[in-house]
């Protein structure tokens, strides 16, 4: 493990003096000063971008402390994946770490200018001593420091000036080291990740993910209800009107009117209306099956099996009602599994078993197809896997080449947030 600048300062003075630390700290101080020099005008001109400058300088400072023997400061920001890059700014702006980075930016600025001032003072003092020594070697020397303070030197006194120079160097080395060590420690304090903050963040994230899934479920139910109670009723009413028109036309035809074309037109419109009703029903079923809400998973799986077009055996005698989110997830997982079994593994029969225990809803779907299903294929399954994991469950697929494919879904029976937090 590297020794840090603080340890070096605490070491014996001659060891410190002849180590690399005075030079290292001087370099650090110099870089701080340059940074301060550059940042001040930049920040003043572009103050709206201060958070961005905070992030950039924070990233630099996290690395710069390595010069002083500290480990690189861990990134305090959450990782932003490639697929959410467009949200980068939003994510960063909501993080407390970003605002601490801004604090770090001002610390860097302040320390930079402090360092700059220190360097100037040191340079002036050293230059003065060097000038005095150099002049004194040529004979007696007198220098007016101010109106009534003056330095007078004899060549024999040179050693005094040299000693003063050495002391000034040593003082400068310590002052530099302490200043940069202080700066590095401040950076470490401001820029490090906060464990408690991370934990709170994760907890908040977990909660919001679960409530999101639940909100989706509610939203789907609302859409289903709106479609059934809105558009569908309108279409039925339309179909009734068309039916009545057909009857009227029939009466007209009986009394001898020529209504052949009108009858055809109305019949065509009627067919269209019925087609619209059929496709609306199919769409609504894909959004959220009403029977799932009213009668639970067992009944909804029976419905699903009835439309599958291949024999499906369902063993769901031990299924109790579970949370709406879990039931929805189970239903759509089975639906996807059936579709995949038919489409990809040429299955001719499917067995579905579902049961609830005190805590869990467990569903397995087994088909007699040729297996070899890859769960990384099909975005449908991947999405459902994520949905199950969000709810605190798991979805596993076992599909050896040659079959059979078995899909196993485990979900909490109740998706209360406390259950998630405990799990």
């Amino acid at each position, binding site marked *: 493990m590297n020794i840090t600048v603080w340890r070096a300062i605490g070491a014996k003075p001659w060891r410190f003096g002849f180590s690399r630390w005075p030079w290292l700290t001087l370099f650090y101080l110099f870089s701080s000063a340059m940074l301060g020099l550059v940042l001040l005008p930049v920040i003043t001109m572009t103050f709206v971008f201060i958070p961005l400058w905070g992030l950039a300088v924070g990233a630099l400072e996290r690395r710069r402390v390595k010069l002083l023997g500290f480990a690189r400061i861990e990134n305090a920001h959450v990782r932003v994946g490639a697929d959410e890059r467009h949200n980068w700014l939003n994510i960063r702006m909501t993080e407390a770490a970003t605002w601490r980075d801004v604090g770090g930016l001002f610390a860097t600025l302040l320390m930079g200018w402090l360092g700059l001032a220190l360097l100037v003072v040191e340079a002036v003092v050293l230059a003065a001593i060097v000038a005095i020594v150099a002049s004194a070697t040529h004979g007696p020397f007198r220098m007016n420091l101010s109106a009534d303070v003056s330095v007078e030197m004899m060549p024999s006194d040179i050693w005094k000036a040299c000693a003063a120079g050495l002391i000034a160097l040593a003082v400068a080395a310590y002052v530099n080291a302490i200043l940069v060590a202080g700066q590095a420690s401040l950076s470490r304090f401001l820029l490090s990740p906060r464990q408690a903050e991370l934990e709170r963040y994760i907890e908040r994230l977990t909660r919001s993910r679960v409530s999101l899934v639940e909100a989706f479920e509610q939203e789907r139910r609302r859409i289903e*209800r709106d479609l*059934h*109670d809105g558009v*569908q*009723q*309108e279409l*039925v*009413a*339309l*179909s*009734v*009107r*068309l*039916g*009545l028109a*057909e*009857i009227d036309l029939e009466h007209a035809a009986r009394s001898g009117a020529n209504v052949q074309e009108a009858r055809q037109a109305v019949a065509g419109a*009627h067919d269209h*209306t*019925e087609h619209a*009703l*059929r496709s609306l*029903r199919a769409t*609504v*079923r894909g959004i959220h*099956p*009403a*029977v799932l*809400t*009213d*009668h639970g998973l067992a*009944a909804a799986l*029976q*419905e699903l*099996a*009835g*439309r*599958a*077009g291949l*024999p*499906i*055996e369902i063993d769901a005698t031990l299924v109790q009602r579970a949370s709406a989110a879990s039931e929805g997830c189970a239903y759509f997982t089975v639906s996807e599994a059936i579709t995949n079994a038919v489409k990809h593994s040429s299955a001719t029969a499917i067995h579905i078993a579902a049961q609830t225990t005190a805590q869990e809803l467990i569903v397995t779907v087994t088909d007699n197809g040729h297996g070899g299903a890859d769960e990384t294929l099909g975005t449908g399954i991947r999405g459902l896997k994520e949905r199950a994991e969000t709810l605190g469950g798991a979805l596993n697929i076992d599909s050896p080449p040659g079959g059979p494919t078995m899909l196993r879904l485990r979900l909490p029976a109740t998706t209360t947030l406390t259950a998630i937090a405990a799990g």
Partner: protein
Amino acid sequence: MRIILAEDSTLLRESLTSLLEKLGHTVIATATDAPGLVDAVALAAHENRLPDLVITDVRMPPNNQDDGLRAALQIRRSHGTVPILVLSQYVADAYAAQLLSENDGAVGYLLKDRIGRISDFSRALETVAAGGTIIDPEMVRHLLARKTGSPIDSLTPREREVLTLMAEGLANQAIASQLVVSAAAVAKHIGNIFTKLDLTPDEGHRRVKAVLLYFST
């Protein structure tokens, strides 16, 4: 016919009322929710003038679930065999099973889509009012696709077709004309169906029982 109608959608309630009146029936009361329907029937029963037919939507307030169906079951329990036609927005065996398992005839379960086919709808009204059973053709297809390992499996495709049409409440003559076969052939198919489903002539309501068999297996 004197009809009590329960439907929460104003649009549909009015369309249905005018349709029923055009077909020559009288809508003696309308209800907009399940308790309203139960009350309306109770009131009619109190005046000793039970309706000839109750038409109800499945999904109605207050819970917006199968309240209409529950009201129908309650009416049957309180007032005996009042003919009831249930209109649903979706195919759901669970609803139909609930309705049909407790009753012996005089019930119907139709998708709302069918109302527009007025002659079929009118016939369905008559069938249910006369004590028959009507199940939506789509439901029947659904049930036939689902049931495996039951006596229904042993039916030939033609016999299934006949059974489907029976479920829709068609008489032998109507089945014959729809399948373009003779009435005698239909009678023979029906006989085979009864035999395969193990329904003996002394059981009465054999047609209804054959249809109900979907739900019991």
